[in-house]
């Protein structure tokens, strides 16, 4: 369970950085192939986990340049470690984040962005001081969703991180194992825990999105 949480937390953090950057680029820049990039980012939502896992295996495996670079840097292969589970969860959850963040960024009234640029703000300052605060709730809700999705990933993790008890065995995989081994009680407990945590996270996400943004109370 702790392994699952750790994987989910780290991958959500990474998904936030990567996802927000991608979403910002998609929402603000005009370039050729923009919609293709958006589609590519969304692909993991619709592809079967095995396909995604296969791509990642090829991309990050011990024979691939990326895999070799990782081995050279950290002295061990990436695949079949808990770090690989993070990568799996990352690819599984980023699309959700990018989708909602892009929509959120694009929903911000353009005149705020124009005003910020007109008042001498750099793009970074515009993002940190104007766009992000204005979309904070949606982004947090999207992060919560991404977190829940990271937590629940099964297929991709199995493909590239494997099923090594104590090292790469996340809750979702442990449940599969327990059922296979006929340990119904263990499976039930794990199922309940995972459902409970996910429910909690999703209800937080819902609260964030249903609370209307806009007129908020001031401190005074």
């Amino acid at each position, binding site marked *: 369970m702790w392994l699952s949480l750790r994987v989910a937390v780290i991958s959500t953090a990474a998904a936030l950085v990567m996802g927000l950057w991608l979403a910002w680029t998609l929402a603000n820049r005009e370039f050729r192939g923009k919609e293709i990039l958006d589609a590519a980012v969304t692909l993991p939502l619709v592809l079967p986990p095995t396909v995604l896992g296969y791509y990642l295996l090829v991309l990050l495996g011990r024979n691939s340049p990326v895999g070799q670079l990782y081995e050279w840097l950290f002295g061990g292969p990436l695949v079949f470690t808990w770090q690989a589970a993070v990568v799996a969860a990352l690819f599984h959850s980023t699309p959700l984040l990018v989708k909602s963040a892009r929509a959120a960024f694009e929903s911000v009234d353009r005149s*705020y962005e124009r005003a910020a640029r007109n008042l001498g703000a750099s793009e970074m300052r515009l993002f940190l001081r104007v766009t992000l605060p204005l979309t904070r709730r949606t982004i947090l809700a999207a992060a919560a969703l991404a977190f829940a999705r990271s937590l629940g990933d099964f297929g991709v993790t199995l493909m590239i991180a494997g099923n090594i008890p104590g090292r790469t065995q996340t809750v979702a995989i442990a449940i599969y194992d327990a059922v296979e081994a006929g340990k119904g009680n263990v499976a039930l407990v794990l199922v309940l825990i995972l459902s409970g945590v996910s429910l909690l996270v999703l209800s937080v996400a819902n609260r964030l999105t249903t609370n209307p943004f806009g007129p908020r109370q001031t401190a005074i």
Partner: protein
Amino acid sequence: MIRARIRKNFAAGAESAGFALDVEFEAEKGITVLFGPSGAGKTLTLDCIAGFVRPDEGRILVDDEILYDGAAGVHLAPRARHCGYVFQNYALFPHMTLRKNLEFAAARIPRLERHRKISEILEKFHLSDVSGRRPHELSGGQKQRCSIARALIREPRLLLLDEPARGLDAPLRAELYAILRQVRVEFGIPVLLVTHDSGECFELGDEMIVLRDGRVVQSGTPRNIFEQPANIEIARLLGLFNLLPVEVRALDPGRNTSRLRYEDFELTGPYFPGRLIGDHAWLCIRPDQLSAKPRNGRAGFNEIPAALVRVVEKPERLRLEFSGEIAVELERRQFESYSNVKDWVIEFPQTGLRIL
């Protein structure tokens, strides 16, 4: 001062007609009003100057600094242009207090001076008491003042205002005009103001530029334009005139007279240089230049009979609307004893007649 020559084409899309902006103008310090109907390209012109929209070609200079030059490929980012911009919806950041909004704008100014400047400008715009509030807790007038203060705190070289009086009621409008006059005096920079309200041009404008369909159709002082609209289109846009189709029947340069035919009536006016007998033109005359009286027998010299259609109350005078779409403005007391008379004659002054 600002000098601009801007061209921008938008191809026609599936649901939109194409549009071509092609304007050239100069504005000195003082208030220059960009006047025109909606869709004339007024806001687009501002957006090109502020750098939100990149023109296709042309050149924009402010105080000899090039903001845009199509031929040289110069297109400064909006943040490098130092143009104050007051947005139609104010665009105050909703998650920041009023003071924070000003701080955001003044970020480049050293800290101590920034603090002093913000306090100073808050004071000047009567906002000190509400500086800790967020925009949604402010009244329309306070938001308006804050957006102008925010645009001015960076000491821009140019102030752009996009229909600032839109949606304001009369007292707020008067307050806005007072602020803008103050800005004109204290900041000494060119102010470009977009409006489609001809009264506003007269009230505020030192200079006036009339835009229509993406082109400058006339420019000059508001007084000049109101007295001498260059053509019938502009007279229509200003919406202040009686416009009657007439035919030139006689021209006499020696006695400085002319005769015009309007429907079945003959009117005598001054000599119109450059016109020929038989020309069809528009007689253009303001309602307050005409006078009207109850009809008594035949219409006299330069008078035409007309039936009163409706009386419109104005703050100081009455506007009488007659058949043939002629309006006359009268003092209230000139009308009071004749309020049930239907048949009138309208008298045209001989010297004030102008044709377009």
